[in-house]
């Protein structure tokens, strides 16, 4: 259930680096726009500078979007981890254990067979399993969207690099 290899803090740090990069590229693109109209550059030089300016602006957008996406994902993963821990705490308190296939009743004799207690535990089990299914489905949807957006950004960055070659 918990992502063993995810680290929201590392995503957040990378997001911060990408946003800083985006700010630098944006500033450079703005600075490059100013002198292009000046009379001291030849047409070929102006075109060259314009090409760099456009690429800097494009990469700034891609870095900003990537940073926003990573930051959002870091927050989402941290929230997921919190939700899962809360669910596990509640399940444990209800006498449930988590196994390979999901939650189940703790093995052994846990007390007298009071119908209300048995029914309460069964209800807790159903609720825990339903909540697990909900969290997994939400995570799969969000992960798929994350991958798709990253692929779009990757393709766009590749286009920028190819245009500069």
């Amino acid at each position, binding site marked *: 259930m918990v992502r063993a*290899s995810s680290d929201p803090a590392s995503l957040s740090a990378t997001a911060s680096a990408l946003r800083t990069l985006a700010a630098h590229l944006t500033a450079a693109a703005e*600075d490059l726009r100013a002198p292009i109209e000046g009379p001291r550059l030849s047409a070929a030089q102006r075109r060259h500078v314009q090409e760099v300016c456009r*690429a800097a602006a494009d990469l700034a957008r891609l870095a900003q979007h990537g940073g926003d996406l990573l930051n959002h994902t870091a927050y989402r993963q941290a929230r997921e981890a919190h939700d899962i821990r809360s669910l596990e705490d509640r399940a444990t308190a209800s006498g449930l254990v988590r196994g390979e296939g999901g939650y189940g009743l703790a093995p052994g004799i846990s007390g007298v067979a009071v119908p209300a207690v048995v029914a309460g535990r069964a209800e807790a089990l159903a609720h825990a399993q339903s909540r697990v299914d909900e969290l997994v489905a939400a995570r799969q949807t969000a*992960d798929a969207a994350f991958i798709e957006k990253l692929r779009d950004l990757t393709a766009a960055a*590749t286009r920028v690099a190819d245009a500069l070659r």
Partner: protein
Amino acid sequence: MPPVQPPGPGPVLDRLALACDDAVDGLLDAMPMAGDRALQGALDDYLDALMDALRMLAAVGREASAALPVSQRRVALSEPLPSGGPERERSRSW
């Protein structure tokens, strides 16, 4: 007093190339962990593509800077920046 001419793009291009180099170094040092293989693969691909584009931008920026007239580069580097308010000055400090 002679009017202050705007600096040429030479210093901006040079700073841009350095910023791209720094960004690539920073991204190479970063170890973002996204989760399972599919997520990590997509993230690594994005960062690789971005770094590739940044390397290209740095190279093209240096090329464009080198192609500028030497006199203009010297003027641009020695003349004071035009006054453009705090926002403009901050944007030049990157």
